[in-house]
């Protein structure tokens, strides 16, 4: 392979991962905005999303018997898993995240870590044979049945499926940006994030906005989970732990509280991983170690993140 092809391949791999990381990171940033928490259970909510969509796809036959077309099935699975996981996210927020959000941030970090472990173990114990790694079914394969399924560009093979992921990812980011910046609901979310008490005085229903934010964040996690499952083809009950740390690190690197920052952070993390996998000997084993080292460097030298504002210690 030529040098250009190698770089292209690295970039493409990095971007594929980056989409997933960004969607998780956006959740962390949103939650941090409306509630003063680093919600660590988000990674495990993401994992639950993967299991939900897998279960839904298991019911493929039932749904197609109900007269849904193939495209309809795909859409139903995407929307249903997003809604279900959104509701689950709101339930966890009501039960455990909001009650601890009044204490210091480190305490809420700890509480949500505990919640995450509880969720993970619950899936392992109560999902049928939940301790094993599961094969994630294919979803888009029929869409490209007639074609080769991929095209080649200067020595690098791009699968149509992955291009589709890319389009979905970009579309979701655009929709989210539109929602946050241009709609009234988005304005309310931003208002609560900026000054919750003031927003309350202006007639914003704070509790509803918090629920809505958790719904959106968790729905995005469901989307990320489907993409993850389709990309790797296997899911495990403990994949959320690492994903949670990665998502939070990405959000922090980008600057907590800033949606674009979270997206940039996700890509920084994934590109670091892809680069270290390609350039360092035995890099694929150590790529997460390198990426975390980069995160630590970021936290040391720029704790407010790439796009974050400088925060002063209030006395």
């Amino acid at each position, binding site marked *: 392979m030529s040098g250009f092809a190698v770089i292209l391949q690295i970039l493409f791999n990095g971007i594929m991962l980056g989409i997933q990381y960004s969607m998780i990171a956006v959740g962390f940033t949103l939650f941090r905005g409306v509630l003063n928490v680093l919600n660590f259970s988000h990674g495990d909510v993401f994992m639950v999303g993967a299991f939900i969509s897998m279960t839904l796809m298991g019911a493929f036959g039932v749904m197609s018997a109900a007269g849904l077309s193939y495209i309809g099935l795909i859409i139903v699975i995407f929307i249903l898993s997003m809604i279900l996981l959104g509701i689950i996210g709101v339930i966890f927020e009501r039960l455990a995240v909001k009650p601890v959000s009044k204490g210091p941030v480190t305490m809420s970090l*700890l509480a949500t870590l505990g919640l995450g472990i509880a969720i993970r173990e619950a899936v392992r114990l109560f999902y049928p044979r939940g301790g094993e790694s599961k094969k994630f079914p294919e979803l888009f394969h029929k869409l490209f049945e007639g074609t080769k399924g991929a095209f080649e560009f200067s020595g690098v093979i791009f699968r149509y499926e992955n291009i589709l992921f890319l389009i979905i990812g970009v579309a979701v980011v655009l929709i989210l940006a539109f929602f946050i910046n241009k709609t009234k609901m988005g304005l309310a979310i931003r208002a609560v994030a900026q000054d919750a008490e003031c927003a309350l005085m202006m007639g914003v229903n704070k509790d509803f906005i918090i629920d809505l934010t958790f719904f959106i964040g968790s729905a995005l996690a469901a989307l990320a989970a489907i993409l993850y499952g389709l990309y790797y083809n296997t899911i495990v009950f403990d994949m959320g732990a690492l994903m949670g740390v990665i998502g939070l690190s990405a959000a922090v690197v980008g600057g907590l509280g800033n949606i674009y920052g979270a997206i940039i952070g996700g890509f920084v993390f994934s590109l670091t991983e892809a680069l270290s996998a390609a350039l360092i000997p035995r890099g694929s084993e150590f790529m997460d170690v390198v990426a975390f080292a980069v995160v630590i460097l970021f*936290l040391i030298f720029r704790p407010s993140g790439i796009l974050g504002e400088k925060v002063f210690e209030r006395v």
Partner: protein
Amino acid sequence: MMKKNRFFDKFIVALVELIVYFYIMIFFRVESVWILIITVILLGVIFYLSKKFKKTFELINDSFTKNSKFATFLIVILMIAFPFVSKLIVPLYIYWLLITIQTFIFAIVALGLNFQAGTTGVMNLSSAAFYGVGAYTAGYLALHYKLPAILTIPLGGIAASIFGLLLFIPIFRARGQYFALITLAFGYMFVLSLNNLNFVGGPQGLKNIPPINLFGYNFQKAPFGTHFYVNYYYLVLIILLIALLIFQRLYNSWIGLTLNYIRDDEPAAKGCGVSTNKWKLMTLLIGNFFMGIGGAIYAHMIGFISPPNFTLTISLLIISIVLLGGSDNIIGVLVGAFILVLIPEKLRVITEYRVMLYGLLIVLILIFRPKGLIPFKERIYDKVIAKEN
């Protein structure tokens, strides 16, 4: 209130301690889960009675505070007698001895974390990693360089401190949540690296770590017709007592007060001329040292260590020990270790659910009792003022 003589006080102290001691023996002896339910009911009854007969309980409490030296002395004697008494009462005493040793090891590690997170308020979420550094250092040195345990155990502690130094000095700029996040990332990096580094055995870990041999005394030999775990029991007990002594002394000294000040209001402490970074670093080093020592003993005793022993789950177990007992409370840490390490062994039925329960427990404690079972007391320096209040 009537005037009590000292002998009566001591009698009460001894009575209460002996009742608790032999109750624990019975707790070990009875195989069924019912003993646990009975215990919970008993504790509830005691709690209820303490509300109903406040005077009597105050009397008992009083005699404990007056005779604290005698009480401690008696506890130590009872602990030393533990292997032999339990041999008489408990048929499965070897098993329970092992569990008790593990409880003590976790208590040592949790004391280290309590000093960091409880007293100084630096949230170190990678305690299991430092525990692992100690275990791997001791195991590696004993395996490949044939160093004796008298060296490997302190070196395990020192290695944990050095790793802490390397990690913590650069990250002092990060505060609160970011600090916690970095330590969390470090915990992951540690386990990921262990899994991929060949010289420490990768996922297989280190096997056949030689047992402790102190001054020619082989710890594999069973003393007085008991079991060789008794040796480890005394070693761990001694180290636990030393750790308790050190941390109690530190807590009661002006150092402890300084550290509490840093925890409660760092900018104010800085403003008063406390060099917060220096003190925080000292806390982290001392805490890490004890975590490392705990790991080193564990490695020698079990003889086999692998990456799953040092994951985030173990960190969370250690944190929940500190939180459950009540952070910044040394007695609380012991109670927490007892509840979280020892009692689950009784619940063999729920071994599968144990990790999930740890997670839920952390959430529940932080929601309903954020100060732990035994909340720390305000420091009282002037006894006259204390009486007036």
